[in-house]
Structure formats: structure tokens, C-alpha cells
């Protein structure tokens, strides 16, 4: 909230919520003097009437004073909330025996209008300017820091590895249901896939920073808006490039070894997976900038990983494994699809034409509903027709989470932070459905 204008009706209404004003001016020694007093906003003249007060070096007419309106609500045992304040500057004048201030400039913050996290993000450039100036003054680089482990954890977005865990182990249990198992090879496949996934996350940050998409996004959440490690100056671009190269080198190396020792099909699946991972964000392809990111994620974290692991165990590809991968593919796609909603204002500024940018709220929510229904229909159809074991019908149980996501989208489409529970539920939906599909296959073998 910031403006350079006479009092706006909304500001007048806002100021009515404060019970006193603090008048600030400089005394004869140059020290500020703060005096609390009563006030009244005259909406007709746009002036603020303030009660006269007694204080040292009371300012005369024409002196520019500052009026501060400030409020917090105490929360015993916690601290406080409802933080808001308004600063108004203007010349003091006397009219009808009262002091009046005609606002010339205002600024302030109300956490109900600009959430604290957004307020912080909007000020990140200021933080960097300050630390750069401090660095120049001291001749030593001063930058924010966290322990290396935290920086790696943030930069790679490790918690999102559930998106890899589910398809890899789904491929493994489908193979087990077909009478074959090779768990050490599965663990190696997971390691390789995880490296590619983490590499994808890092590359995504690098290119979303270069394009300006992450910087333009001032409402990041734990689920969207990138890791922010570059925006916050926690690591350098060079560190991120080295990290990406390391992850892709390790992932590709493992993939080549698996292709050479287990099945040549893995080579082609791996090539496709690496291509999608790098060019998800990287130029010149930039799939996600073209609205193809959702499809890329569905293919990569669905059929490629499920079939790849199946091939690692059995040495061949399989129709049932492909079918089992489809609901997982749709649900992982929906993670990205929903997470793009709060990012869309920043994305549009960077030319990132995601589906959330291209479509209106109604179409996005409708698209979510259709895709979620399709995922559960595939599970039901597969379980009922025998394409997948009947136990996999257990994976229908988390369906109410999809309803929660739908409701969250309907209610909080315009509120990035209000959307967080829905985004969390959506990630949980993918993980739970995936784990129950895996459990279904395990039970099919065990029972």
C-alpha cells in the first residue's frame, strides 16, 4: 500500500479504524518528537483534523509533520497479529481553532491486504541493495546464509521426491505381480530417477530466474514459485549450474549403466526423460513456457518412470505397467497444474504461458475436475476389469481429497496463501493414490 495523493476515500475509511494518531516533528535540537492525540478525518475536504496537544517545540503552521496510525492486536502467549500502519505527511495548518493536515504523501502496510510473506518478497531487492552497500563499505562480501544442508535442501526441493518415489515403486510392484523382482536394481533406478528429478528442479530455478519469472512472482508458497534460493541470494547461479550438472551426470550415468546391464529400452526412456527434464524450462524448447509443462510432467513422472523401472526389473516393457502409470501421470500433472495458479501473475510477466495463464479460473477448475475424474475412472476401470488387481481399487479412497482441492480452487483462486491447503491436499492426493496403488499390487501378491 503506497500512494502519493490526497486522502482517498478508502484510506479515510481505513483510518477510522485507528483510535489515535501519533504526530511527529523535529524539535529545536533536531530530535523527532512523537505525540499521541485524537483525530478526525474530514472526507469532504480530504484533511485530517488533529486535536491540539502540549509538547516541546510545538510546530507552527506550514511545518511538515508526519501522522502515524498504528495498530496491533495482542495475542497472549503468542505475540500479536493484525499488524497495520499508515504514515501520512503534510503541512500543519490551523483552521477554526483546530490543527489540520492536508495529506501530501502516504505509505504503510496492512497485513490483511498484503500478507507478511508477500510484503517480505516485495522487499527482497531492497535487502540485496543494502547488503551490497554494506559489502562495499566493509570490503567483504556480506550475504545471507544458511547451513549448506539447508541450502541444498531448499535448492533441490527434496520433499517433491514423492513424485519420483511413487512411479518407480509402482513399476517395481507391477513387475513383482508378474513374478519378477530385483530390489537392489529398483533402488538404483530410484537413485537415478531422483537425480534427474532434482536436476530438473535446479534447472527450473536457473531458467525461471533468467527469464524473470521467479523474480516477478511476489507470492511464492512452499508449493509454488520456485525454491527462491537465487532470489534470496543463498547460492550463486554458478553453484546451481554445478548442482544441475552433477545431478544430471549422476542420473545419466546410472541410466546408461541400467540400459547396458538390464534392458536397452531404458536407454530410450532415459533419453526422453532427460530431454523433458532439461527442456521443461531450458531454452530453446521451454516446454512449460509454451503450456506443455503439464504434459511433460505427466509423461516423465508417469509412463517413463513406471515403464523404466518395470524394464529395469524384467528387461521388457508391459501394457499393464503403462496402464497403471496413467492415473499417477494425471495426478502428478495436476500438482503442477494447480501450483501454477498462484504463480500465474508472475508467469505472465515473464512470458510463461502456462495453462493457468492461458485459461480463466472457471476453465482451470473445470479442467482439474475432468482430469481428477479421469484418474479415478482409470483406477476403477482397471480394478474392475482385471487390467489391474482388484486390490488397487483401494486407491479410490483418497478421492475426497480431490473434492477438497476443487473447493480450495473455487474459494481461494485469487489468494495464493489461501490456496496453500488445497495445494498441499493435491500433493497428498498424488502420494496417497500412488501408495495405495502400490499397496494394491503388494496385497495382490501377498494374499
Amino acid at each position: 500500500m503506497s500512494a502519493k495523493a490526497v486522502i482517498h476515500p478508502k484510506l479515510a475509511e481505513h483510518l477510522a479504524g485507528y483510535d489515535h494518531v501519533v504526530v511527529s516533528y523535529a524539535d529545536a535540537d533536531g530530535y523527532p518528537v512523537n505525540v499521541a492525540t485524537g483525530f478526525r478525518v474530514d472526507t469532504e475536504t480530504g484533511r485530517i483534523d488533529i486535536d491540539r496537544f502540549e509538547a516541546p517545540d510545538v510546530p507552527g503552521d506550514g511545518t511538515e509533520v508526519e501522522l502515524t496510525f498504528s495498530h496491533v492486536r495482542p495475542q497472549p502467549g503468542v505475540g500479536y497479529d493484525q499488524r497495520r500502519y499508515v504514515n501520512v505527511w503534510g503541512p500543519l495548518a490551523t483552521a477554526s481553532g483546530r490543527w489540520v493536515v492536508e495529506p501530501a504523501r502516504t505509505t504503510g502496510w496492512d497485513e490483511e491486504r498484503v500478507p507478511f510473506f508477500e510484503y517480505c518478497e516485495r522487499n527482497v531487492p531492497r535487502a540485496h541493495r543494502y547488503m551490497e552497500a554494506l559489502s562495499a563499505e566493509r570490503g567483504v562480501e556480506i550475504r545471507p546464509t544458511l547451513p549448506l544442508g539447508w541450502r541444498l535442501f531448499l535448492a533441490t526441493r527434496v520433499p517433491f521426491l514423492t513424485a519420483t518415489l511413487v512411479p518407480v515403486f509402482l513399476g517395481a510392484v507391477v513387475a513383482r505381480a508378474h513374478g519378477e523382482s530385483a530390489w537392489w536394481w529398483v533402488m538404483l533406478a530410484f537413485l537415478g530417477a531422483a537425480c534427474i528429478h532434482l536436476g530438473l528442479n535446479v534447472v527450473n530455478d536457473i531458467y525461471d530466474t533468467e527469464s524473470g519469472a521467479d523474480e516477478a512472482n511476489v507470492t511464492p508458497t512452499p508449493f509454488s514459485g520456485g525454491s527462491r534460493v537465487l532470489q534470496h541470494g543463498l547460492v550463486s547461479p554458478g553453484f546451481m549450474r554445478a548442482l544441475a550438472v552433477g545431478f544430471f551426470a549422476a542420473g545419466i550415468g546410472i541410466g546408461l549403466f541400467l540400459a547396458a546391464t538390464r534392458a536397452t529400452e531404458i536407454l530410450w526412456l532415459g533419453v526422453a526423460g532427460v530431454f523433458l527434464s532439461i527442456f521443461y524450462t531450458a531454452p530453446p524448447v521451454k516446454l512449460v513456457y509454451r503450456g506443455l509443462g503439464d504434459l511433460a510432467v505427466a509423461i516423465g513422472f508417469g509412463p517413463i518412470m513406471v515403464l523404466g523401472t518395470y524394464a529395469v526389473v524384467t528387461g521388457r516393457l508391459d501394457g499393464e505397467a503403462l496402464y497403471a502409470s496413467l492415473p499417477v501421470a494425471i495426478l502428478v500433472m495436476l500438482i503442477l497444474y494447480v501450483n501454477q495458479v498462484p504463480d500465474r501473475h508472475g508467469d505472465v510477466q515473464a512470458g510463461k504461458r502456462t495453462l493457468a495463464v492461458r485459461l480463466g479460473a472457471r476453465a482451470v477448475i473445470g479442467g482439474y475436475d475432468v482430469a481428477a475424474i479421469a484418474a479415478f475412472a482409470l483406477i476403477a476401470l482397471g480394478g474392475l476389469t482385471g487390467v489391474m488387481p482388484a486390490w488397487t481399487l483401494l486407491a479410490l479412497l483418497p478421492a475426497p481429497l480431490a473434492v477438497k482441492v476443487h473447493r480450495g480452487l473455487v474459494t481461494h483462486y485469487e489468494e495464493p496463501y489461501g490456496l496453500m491447503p488445497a495445494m498441499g491436499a493435491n500433493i497428498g492426493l498424488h502420494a496417497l493414490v500412488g501408495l495405495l496403488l502400490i499397496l494394491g499390487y503388494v496385497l495382490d501378491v501377498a494374499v
Partner: protein
Amino acid sequence: MGGLPEAAERVLDAALVSELTVVDGRGRPVTYPLIPLYDGEKIYMTSSVLFSRKLEHIKANPKVAVSVTDAGATPVDGFVRVTVQGDARVVEDDLHAGWESLLPLWEAKEPVIRKFVRQRFALPLFFERSIIEITPRRVLLWPHDGNPEVVEIEEAA
């Protein structure tokens, strides 16, 4: 010790929010609501580098005022409005951890801050902070309407 009037000390000890007023490059007052921390001698505040303009103003002109005016956010018996004028110094030898020496005083007023500090990885720049150390020079107290009581503070030896 700094010798602030007892009424001012009680208010500073209890206040959840105060108004820190600094002077900008054009001589105009600029006010920031901040939580005041009082150690019996000096008033301390901390400022994230995210909101560092006040620090630049203080470095250019150390004359500041801190007022406590909101009775509703100052859980203390016998509340009086207080303004402390003083000289401020920005302490930022260690932006990352130097301010943590003030955590006990901060936590006494805002217990949830300890939890936030443990989760600082979620908002790392917010926890890169400078300390604003204010040496009181003069105290204005308004126990009643009308003229304030003015108490000059002698400089500690």
C-alpha cells in the same frame, strides 16, 4: 543505568509495539512501528535487511524518538504515553546471528518468535537483521492531558 523514569521503564518493558521515528535526508520524520526491547539502560530494536531504509536514515542522522502510545498493545497497569528521544547506533557486525543476543527480550513479548527462528530457512532474509541500539537522552511522559513531564537523562559515565 540509564535512569529512565520508572513509569517509562514499565511501559517499555510491556509494550508490544512502539513507534520509532527517524529523520530522513530531507529532515522529515519517518516512523516505523517496531517492537521495543529494553534492557534497563538502552532501548533495542532489530530490523531485517528487507526493511532497511530506516537503518540508512539512522546512519545518516542518529537522532531518533521512540514512543509507546497504544494502551491496548501495552499490557501494564498504570499505562502512560511515553516518548524517548535518543541517539541510535546500528550494530550489524553479524547480520546473521548478532541480533540473537536480544532473543530473550524479544521472546518475552512475542513467544512465537522462537518458533519462527527455528524455521528461518523459510524466510532467510527476514532473519538477516541489524540491531538498533538507542541511548536515551530525554523522556516525555503524558500521565495526564496537557503538558508532558520532561526528564533529561544524564549520560552514563
